[in-house]
């Protein structure tokens, strides 16, 4: 008798479940205007102020807004703030806020939300890894509901870029006060709301019907499918289970081109890929050795083979940055010249050179194997050592226990984000140049592109000439799309996705 009851329960359960499953697996019509997106991993948290993980900001970008935001060219434009003014002494920044914005929980967005958010990120209890970017703020005043005034203790030009970055997402003051769990239940003013997050599986976002940009977002929702394996993303794209994948290799492009339902876009990333040298160690403390190594590296080939193509750069700034200056003519690929320089440097190179590679980043490992061969051609005995990411961070990046390493430096909206610390000997390449360090500090205190450009020009020239690391290039990013997708954007420097303009035909 008992078995019959159990069997009955199972039968009923199947009758209920099966049609649901069938519907879920249904065709595109039942899917509505929901974009199927491939995300390369699971974020550690969705609290924008408690992490520096890109995956978090890639999700949060759709849930939250910032006071200002980058446009497609990386210029900073109004968002939650309609306009802003900076006092002549650069110490008082006044933001005028939009009056018609609501949080997902119904709260009206006002100046006190901005104050609560900026106080939270600067609060040591929050332990935000980005807190130092807001250190210059001494106090936040809210003269009325739509005005925020930031008082600075010293002029700090990078602040505007920090306010446009994902970690300055504006949270509702009422929930901050209530100790809300922002880790898993984000509440913002953004174009989409979080509906569900199944760890390591998918993140479901639905349209915010009250979004302040009228007519946007165009989509009903975005499903971020967490797919770590690149080949699986491409397969999903080709078969139509995935609409957009941003992890496309150069080798996949032919396939995307030959399939009539897929296409791709090519943009530059904001990376500067380098072969870094430990400038505090012999023989790399000798500038001639560093120049020789730069001559020995065929940057174009390495970029093509390891990174899927891109633009060669000759200094520490990514190719599409407004502050970029071309120094690629300084140390072009020339193995003979490299050998001569090495011989004339007088540096004793009698030991094997250690090349530490972060083994979780295939392109960097690949580039490292190429550099090893190129350096062998000028007579350097380079030994590869694969290290896992945590070892790379602790032993190589922080510990300085390496001769050579390969890495890509991500960009920030402000050039100070890339350059701060260089020249002081404190950076991981241990490069000392007080002139460069002083210029970088001066540019940080100087507001306005036209005023800062000449300072950064000098810094980039010094870095190009002294070769603290071999600057290789800025790789392309290929994004694979189904042909019915249009208006997909990625924010420059931040690598986050802007789904507001995305449409499915």
């Amino acid at each position: 008798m008992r078995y019959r009851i159990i069997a009955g329960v199972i039968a009923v359960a199947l009758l209920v479940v099966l049609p649901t499953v069938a519907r879920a697996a249904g065709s595109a019509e039942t899917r509505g205007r929901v974009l199927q997106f491939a995300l390369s991993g699971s974020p550690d948290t969705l609290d924008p102020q408690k992490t520096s993980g890109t995956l978090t900001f890639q999700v949060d970008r759709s849930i939250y807004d910032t006071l200002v935001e980058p446009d497609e060219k990386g210029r900073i434009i109004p968002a939650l703030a309609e306009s802003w003014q900076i006092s002549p002494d650069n110490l008082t920044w006044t933001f005028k806020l939009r009056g018609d914005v609501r949080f997902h929980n119904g709260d009206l967005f006002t100046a006190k939300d901005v104050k609560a958010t900026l106080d939270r990120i600067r609060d040591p209890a929050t332990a935000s890894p980005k807190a130092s970017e807001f250190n210059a703020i001494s106090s936040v005043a809210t003269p009325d509901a739509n005005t925020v005034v930031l008082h600075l203790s010293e002029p700090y030009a990078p602040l505007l870029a920090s306010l446009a970055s994902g970690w300055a997402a504006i949270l509702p003051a009422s929930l901050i006060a209530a100790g809300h769990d922002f880790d898993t239940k984000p509440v913002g003013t953004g174009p989409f709301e979080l509906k569900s997050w199944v760890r390591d599986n998918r993140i479901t976002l639905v349209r915010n019907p009250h979004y302040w940009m009228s007519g946007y977002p165009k989509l009903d929702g975005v499903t971020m499918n967490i797919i770590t394996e690149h080949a699986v993303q491409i397969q999903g794209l080709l078969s139509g289970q995935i609409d957009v994948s941003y992890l496309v290799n150069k080798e996949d492009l032919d396939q995307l081109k030959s399939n009539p339902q897929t296409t791709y876009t090519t943009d530059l990333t904001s990376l500067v890929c380098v072969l870094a040298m430990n400038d505090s160690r012999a023989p790399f403390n000798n500038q001639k050795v560093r120049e020789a190594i730069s001559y020995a590296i065929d940057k174009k080939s390495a970029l093509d083979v390891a990174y899927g193509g891109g633009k060669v750069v000759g200094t520490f700034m990514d190719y599409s940055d407004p502050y970029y200056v071309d120094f690629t003519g300084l140390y072009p690929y020339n193995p003979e010249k490299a050998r001569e320089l090495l011989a004339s440097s007088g540096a004793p190179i009698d030991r094997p050179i250690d090349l530490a590679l972060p083994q979780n980043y295939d392109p960097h490992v690949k580039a490292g194997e190429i550099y090893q061969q190129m350096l062998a051609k000028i007579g350097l005995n380079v030994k590869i050592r694969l290290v896992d990411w945590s070892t790379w961070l602790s032993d190589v990046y922080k510990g300085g226990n390496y001769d050579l390493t390969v890495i890509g430096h991500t960009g920030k909206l402000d050039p100070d984000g890339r350059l701060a610390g260089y020249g002081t000997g404190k950076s991981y390449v241990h490069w000392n140049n007080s002139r460069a360090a002083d210029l970088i500090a001066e540019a940080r205190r100087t507001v306005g592109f036209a005023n800062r450009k000449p300072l950064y020009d000098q810094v980039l020239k010094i870095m190009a000439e002294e070769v603290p690391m071999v600057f290789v290039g800025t790789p392309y990013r290929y994004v694979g799309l189904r042909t019915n997708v249009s208006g997909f954007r990625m924010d420059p420097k931040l690598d986050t996705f802007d789904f507001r303009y995305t449409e499915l035909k």
Partner: protein
Amino acid sequence: MLKAAADREAANGGRRIVIGIVGVYVLLLVCCAVAAPAVAPYDPAGQRLESRFSPPFSAGHLLGTDDFGRDVLSRIIWGARPALMVGVISVGLALILGLLFGLAAALGGGAVDNSIMLLMDSVLSFPTVLLAITVVAVLGYGVAQVMLAVGVIYSPVFARIVRAETLSLKEQTFVLASRALGSSLLRTVGSHILPNMLPRLLVQASATFSLAVVIESSLSFLGLGTQPPNASWGLMLKDSRSYLLQAPWLAIYPGIAIALTVFSFNFIGDVMAEKFGVRGR
């Protein structure tokens, strides 16, 4: 009755062919590993960035080239080295450790036996690959570390066999007779106990050998074993992942090499088990 005999005959004929093929393959493998520099047509680490992804059977490259333009055949040939080296050395190490622990446990008896076997069982209770990863993570990456890890991890398997065989052999009349006639313990072990357990150990060694090859490949796949640009089948599989659709040969050939090697040594183990009349492994 007759038909059954004929079937057996046919099966035996088929088996003999397989034995022949396995024999030739293993011989080839050993030749490749030993004489890799002479056999391989190219430098396995030699990059030719201008001829990347040549398909198999293209001019000069029988099995094609990889993402650096390196010759796949040469890398497969050189990859036999770490595979066989890890197999031979780690199984040898496991065998020696197993013998020492097994004999000590069986002959020591009592508390010695209990504590040694407790240690062996606790090593056995861990998933092997996980334990290997832990050992390599502590000792550092590289082939030598992998050999050490695999040797230690598989020693309990041998220790158990040695202990069980010794316990049963030492009560046998010929062993008791040898002891009664005044042979030393060492001599008795060397001339009576060891030779009699050798078949079982060989069968086990053959099976463990193929497991060691798989672990070497797995660890290299994870980046913990053979370090680039040296060739290893596992490392080749790892590199092939990004090009599965464009250049499937990069995954297929090292995959075949691993599968054939594992099959061969398992098969040799089976054949030996049958020949020696050893039950189960």
